[in-house]
């Protein structure tokens, strides 16, 4: 394996790196995939698994919609059940201010073609009987659902292996050197490959990867907390969210209720996510209980954390790396679990020379939009 030449080396085995690897390998490219831990074990494997438009930025809605269509077929495509379920989502508002925000969001997303409608309290409680009586206004979307994020890594491991991708796990890339038109990529475990093109899909770790080719990606990270209850009788039917986007909640088929919403813990790139902040756990759980009162009598079994990439304008950073021929960046997608399958596929389409269905290498995502981005010195 060492010293071998590949058409492409993808650095980062999250959902977008995995989908791109799979598409490219299936189209006949030779692909080497580097992952510092295990496939889909960071943000892609520890998120709450929500697949809905509630946490997606309006500008990304068209991508998310198409991605959710792909999610429906993903288990079959990968040959392993990731437990995708489409159960519809209800977003709740409890105050005038929340109702106002909800109305604005529903309008913005409807304009992007999302099937999302405002409903009154009575209708909301019909659709989700566990919802609090205090609900003032709600929105319903039939496309909300979830998948089991922790199974993603296994599904991709099997599919990528079948597709012939050279998977290097527990292999953080430590050096990228320009060799002719291509690159020499080396990991801390001593794996070295030549690649004609490289893709940086390292999520929160993009900053360090960029520096290896002399580029400063302004990518930071957020540390999201997710909690799970013990198993309960079936009681919550839908994905339940809050107008502010600070809550997602659903009951898995095994009866546990997953509670997320982007409340922050602490962590860094070296140690990973490390500390649950109790005040944010309390805030998250209070909002969840306000929305679904039966939570009050349950027990919390576990709260965990995940690092999620974050860009200054909360928009993706996708496209050719300015000044570094044949190098690309693919990351910074908020709600990346929802959008990943489609954006990863679009990206592969472009690299394969196909016309993308939706624009991807365009201004809102272009890495060159950041003034702070110092142009490449490598080469």
């Amino acid at each position, binding site marked *: 394996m060492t010293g071998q030449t590949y058409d492409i080396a993808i650095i980062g085995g999250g959902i977008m790196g995995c989908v791109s690897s799979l598409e490219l390998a299936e189209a006949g490219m030779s692909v080497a995939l580097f992952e510092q831990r*295990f496939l889909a*074990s960071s943000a892609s*494997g520890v998120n709450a698994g929500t697949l809905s438009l509630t*946490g997606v*930025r*309006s500008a990304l809605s068209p991508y998310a919609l198409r991605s959710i269509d792909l999610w429906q077929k993903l288990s079959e495509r990968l040959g392993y059940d990731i437990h995708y379920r489409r159960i519809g989502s209800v977003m709740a508002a*409890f105050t005038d201010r929340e109702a106002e*925000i909800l109305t*604005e*969001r529903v309008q*913005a997303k409807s304009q992007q073609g999302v099937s999302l409608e405002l409903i009154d309290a009575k209708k909301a409680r019909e659709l989700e009987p566990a919802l609090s009586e*205090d609900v003032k206004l709600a929105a319903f979307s039939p496309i909300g659902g979830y998948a089991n994020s*922790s*199974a993603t*890594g*296994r599904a991709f*491991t*099997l599919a990528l*292996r079948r597709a012939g991708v050279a998977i290097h*796990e527990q292999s953080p890339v430590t050096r990228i050197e320009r060799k002719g038109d291509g690159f020499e990529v080396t990991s801390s475990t001593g794996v070295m490959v030549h690649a004609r093109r490289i893709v940086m899909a390292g999520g929160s770790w993009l900053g360090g990867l960029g520096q290896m080719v002399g580029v400063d990606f302004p990518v930071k990270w957020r540390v999201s907390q997710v909690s799970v*209850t*013990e198993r309960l009788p079936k009681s919550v039917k839908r994905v339940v969210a809050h*107008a*502010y*986007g*600070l809550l997602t909640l659903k009951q898995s088929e*095994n009866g546990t209720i997953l509670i997320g919403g*982007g409340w922050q813990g602490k962590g860094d790139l070296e*140690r990973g996510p*490390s*500390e*649950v*902040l*109790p005040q944010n*756990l*309390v*805030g998250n*759980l*209070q*909002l969840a*209980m*306000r929305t679904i009162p039966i*939570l*009050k*009598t*349950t*027990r*919390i*079994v*576990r*709260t*965990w954390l995940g690092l999620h990439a974050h860009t200054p304008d*909360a928009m993706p950073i996708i496209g050719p790396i300015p000044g570094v021929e044949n190098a690309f960046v693919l990351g910074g997608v*908020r709600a990346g679990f929802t959008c990943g399958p489609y954006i990863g596929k679009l990206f592969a389409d472009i690299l394969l020379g196909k016309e993308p269905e939706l624009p991807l290498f365009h201004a809102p995502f272009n890495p060159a939009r950041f003034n702070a981005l110092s142009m490449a010195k490598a080469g």
Partner: protein
Amino acid sequence: MSACDVIVLGAGPAGASAAIEASKAGLNVVLLDAGAAAGGQVYRAPPGSFRVTDAEAMGPDFAIGDGLRQELAASPAKCFFGRSVWHIAPGFVVRAVFEGNTEVYEAPTLIVAMGTHERVIPMPGWTLPGVMGLAAATILLKSQRILPGENTVVAGTGPLLAAVAASILKGGGKVAALVELSTRMDWVKALPSLISRPDLLKRGFGWLGELRAAGVPIYRGHALTAITGDAEVTGVEIAPVDAQWRPLAGQRRTIAADSVTIGHGLVPSTEVTRLMGAKHEYRHEQGGWVALRNEDFETTIPNIFVAGDGAGIAGAAAAALRGRITGLAVARRAGRKIDASRETTLRAQLGKAERFGHAISDLMQARPGLIETMTPETIVCRCEEVTRADLDSAIRDGARDVNQMKAWTRCGMGPCQGRMCGEAAASLLAAVQGGDRSKVGQLTARPPLRPIPYEAIVGQFDYADMELPEPQPG
């Protein structure tokens, strides 16, 4: 918020001893424990409503435990029982639930003395009613005087076997058989180390004598390969094992029983030091992963100390000595005057106690062949109902690390957070990697450490007063 100099987690022999020494040296000590009284598992006190009329009949452990409880009560340490710790922030801010409410304690120094939990390598039928751990049986027998059943098979490893069996006889129960993995030769090999504690050795021989006198069949070098019964235990199947404790094919024997107590050694409880990000190393002879520590029992996280069996299995006597040394060391480092010669004496005593404790611990540790008692259909993770076949399938698909295995199979994701299944799952993973447990890693510890009532976390609040952060970008 309650602020003090030191918070001690766990009131077993180690935690109680550390609290006594540190508080007597002048530090303001808070001791937190989930139980109703000090003593931990080994010196567990009878329920408060019980009155002990004949202390001698309670055995020597009761006297030691009572002495410790009296010494603790007379010390200036402030003890809070019934506290279940669910979160610790750096610095250190400890959150614990008491009677449904969260309390907050704060101190610059933390002594972690969380003791151990029991390892059970599963076999078919181990989830039947009537099966319990040796440690659970010990607690029932010691503190409540309750027998595990009417006719009990006692199986597994270590000195707890004979202790539990003898206690059952003493309580009027019947022991159907004692089934031990170690051979007489294993014990003989350990003898030079065990002689350092002739009192304990004598006690062990006493238990065996009582078993022989009662005509209890003793099978050494045997494993329990199945527990039989449909709705409850009706018997067990046993087989001789090879040197790695792999059951030998075709040599099964059945024994009728209505209950089984089983255990394969103790595992240090490291959830707090894992949660805090301390470095650990795998030490087979000490029960598994233990926090790295210096001679003062300080971990790689400054001002977090570990004491007792939670720092590596060495037995109750060593645990108490480690606790005293840790308590003195913490006081010394805080600038309090301590009796240096006493510390030296304690350290010398510890060396002797550890020698005995490590020899016993080594005898108890499960050997790699024991995983073969798990048939493909055997449930390994009871909380999530994950079988050995599920785990084997994940291993075939490429799982190499315990956390990856957890994500792929849900093994260890349930209420016990891997305390019941973690050892068995890690042993299966290690078996395909040359038997090296250190390669397969440790489960990540997450709050709230144990399932905690939702209301105890959120507390009393009014929706009108909830201050939500700004909405997420739309």
